[in-house]
Every structure is written in C-alpha cells, then in structure tokens.
C-alpha cells in the first residue's frame, strides 16, 4: 500500500467523502433527536397510559424491535410511495431510523420510569403535584438519568444503522466511499479508512456518554 497515493486519492475525493460524512451525521442527528423525543413519550405512555394506549404502543415497540432495521427501512422506502407522499430516500430512511430509535428508547424509558420507587410518586402527590408536574419535576429527572447508558448504546446503533441507507441510495459516508472506490479501485484501503472513521465516531459517542454518566453519578441515585 502506497500511503502517499492513498492520501492523494482521498484528497481528490474529499468533497464526496465530506458530503457523505455530513449526511451520515445529519441522518444520525435527526433520527436520534426525534426518536428520543418520541421514545420518552412512548415510554411514559407505556408506563402510565390507559390499557388501549398501552396495547397499541406495545404492539408498535415489539413490532419494530422484532424485525431487522433493514426491513423497516425498505418498508418505509417502498411504502411511502403508496401514501402518495413523495418522500426522498433520505426522508424515508431517516423516518425508519427514527421509528427504530423511538421504539428502543420507549422500552428503555418505560423500564426506567417503572424502576423509580412508588414512594417518590407518593411524595410528589403529597406536596400537591398533579400528574404531569409529578412526571416533569420528580419522576423524569430521576428516570432519565437511569436511561443514559442505554441511550448512548442506541445512539451508537443509529450511527451504525445509517450505513443501511446506502442500500436505498442515500449518499452517506459508506456509499460515498464506495463511489470513491469505484473510481480508484483502492478497495481495502478505503474500507479500512472507513472502519477507522466509524470507530472514531462511535468511540467519541461512548466517551461522551461515560463523561455524562460520571457527572450524573455525582448525585447518587
């Protein structure tokens, strides 16, 4: 492997690769934030909701967690044409990843909320807080701290999952790299470089998570 030749090729392809990286980050950011928001609400619904809501949410969560994420992505990609929506591959893919994220975080949040002792709910009731205030000021601050480690894992899974969108034509980092490979035939070199890049991204996520955890753990829960 000629290092300088590789660097030269990477430099030539830099815009494609950079665009791919941005797309990957974009996909991940949108899917993770929307999925987290939805997931927390789903978790609350699963923990506190009326029976009908709980059944519907449970069906959704078990369905999405029981099928491969790729199937979800294909279904959203081919299926949105049905509804007359002209969703781009990007939108369909991000939507699928968002659904995936929401289901996992929903399950995580439900577990965390239910692990808060009933006594805390009693105390919050006793000072006169209604349901939503109890949730926001007493229960969720504690529950969300417990969700943190799982959340970091799911975030890393979404970042890795973004590569699946290459299969529906979204030019994220993997597809961008493959385009560069198609021109240069430096297969091993580019793929290896990609492995390093993804490793760095995920490593950064888990380090950030560990840091957050340590700062939270200062106040023992």
């Amino acid at each position, binding site marked *: 492997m000629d290092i300088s030749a590789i660097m030269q090729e990477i430099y030539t392809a830099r815009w494609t690769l950079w665009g791919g990286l941005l797309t990957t980050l974009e996909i991940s950011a949108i899917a993770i934030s929307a999925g987290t928001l939805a997931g927390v609400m789903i978790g609350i619904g699963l923990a506190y909701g009326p029976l009908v809501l709980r059944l519907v949410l449970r069906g959704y969560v*078990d*369905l999405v967690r*029981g*099928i*491969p*994420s*790729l*199937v979800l992505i*294909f*279904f959203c990609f*081919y*299926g949105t*044409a*049905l*509804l*007359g929506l002209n969703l781009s591959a990007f939108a369909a893919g991000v939507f699928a990843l968002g659904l995936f994220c929401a289901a996992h975080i929903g399950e995580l949040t439900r577990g965390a909320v239910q692990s808060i002792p009933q006594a805390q709910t009693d105390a919050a009731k006793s000072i006169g807080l209604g349901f939503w205030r109890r949730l926001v000021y007493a229960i969720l601050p504690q529950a969300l701290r417990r969700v943190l480690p799982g959340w970091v894992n799911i975030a*890393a899974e979404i*970042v*890795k*999952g*973004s*590569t*699946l969108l*290459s*299969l529906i034509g979204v030019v994220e980092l*993997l597809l961008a790299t*493959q385009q560069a*490979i198609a021109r240069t035939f430096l*297969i*091993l070199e580019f*793929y*290896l470089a*990609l*492995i390093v890049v*993804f*490793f760095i991204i*995920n*490593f950064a996520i888990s380090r950030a998570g560990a840091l957050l955890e340590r700062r939270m753990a200062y106040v023992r829960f």
Partner: protein
Amino acid sequence: MHYNFNWPVVWRNFDRLWDGLLLGLAIAVVALAIGCLIGILLAMCRESRLRVLRIPATIFVEVMRNTPLLLLVFFFYFGLPELGFTAFNNVETFAATLALYAGAYLTEIFRGGLAAIPVAYVEAGKAIGLTAPQRLRYVILPVLFRIVLPSLSSALISLFKDTALAAAIGVQELTFGARWVNLNTYQILETWTVTAAMYLVASYIIAFGLRQVERRYAMVR
C-alpha cells in the same frame, strides 16, 4: 390513492421467502456456534495476564463492536479477493463475517459469565485434584454456558435479524427475497407484512424454544 390488495400473488412466491428464512436461520446458527468459540477464546484472552494476548483481543473486540456490520460485510466481501482469497462465495463470506461480529459481541457476554462463576466451584475442582484443562472442561465451561444461556438466546435472535444485511451482497435470504417479490409484483404492503410477520414469528419460536432449554439448564444465581 388506490391500492389493490393481491395476496395470492405473494403466496405464489412464498417459497422464495420461505427458503430465504431457512437460509437466514442457518447462517445465524452457524454464526452463533462459531461466534461462541471465538467469544470464549477472546474472553479468556482479555482476562489473561499476558499483554500479548490481552491487547490484540481487546483491539479486535472494540473495533468489531464500533464498526457497522454492513461495512464489515462489504469489507470482507470485496476486500478478501484483493488479498487472494477468491474461493469463498457470498454466503460463506457473509457467514464468516457474521461469525466474527458475533464473536466480538459474545466476548463481553462470556467475560461477564466467567466473572459470575462462583469461586467455590473452581476451588472444589482444585480440591478434588483436577488439572487446569480438566477444570476448564468439566467445571468452568459447563457452568459458563448455563449462566450465559439467556444472553445467548437473545444473541441468536439478534444475529438472525442481522442476516437481513446479507441481501446487500446478493445472498438470497428472506429480505432479499422480499425485495425481489416487492419489485416484481408491486404488492408492497403484502410483501413486507408477510416478511415482517415471518421475522417476528421465527424470533418468537426461537425465543420460546430457547426458554424451554433455559428452564432445563440455566442457573439462577
């Protein structure tokens, strides 16, 4: 929007889906089996006092866990021929890749399992005069498997879902078949509903079956 439901068309192609399901299951089982071997070995390496064993094992596991599976699949599928290994077809390459991926994932599970073996058992083994290899074979490994059985069960289901990625390199497993049926019959809803149902039912059956095995063998500490 009008959509003509046409289930018979999908049923006519059902064997494509069914064969794909079986292939996926087979790959998952093989990957799990090989992955267990790799996992136990690497777990012991990571617990070893010898840095020459510990460090490569740790690097391997960390890299595998932070790399998207799809990237790994492409890396090996397109990369191996570069290094001269042209003998493997896509199914074999995928199974091998998945086995390595599983091995890295399972290493953590086995490490936890090794740590959970009560010291008392090992000491009893020493006390009745077993040598280290004998202790490994008659005390440590059997106990280890009973402890990790629940985790192995969810690992198998997880691997089964990961086999969907084999579609990306043309392996004709369930997702590949579904995509074919989708593109050739345009019956999007039926295709993906049936596919999702097949994944769910298969996962449920695996979980159920393994739960029976667990009931017989697992250790509740």
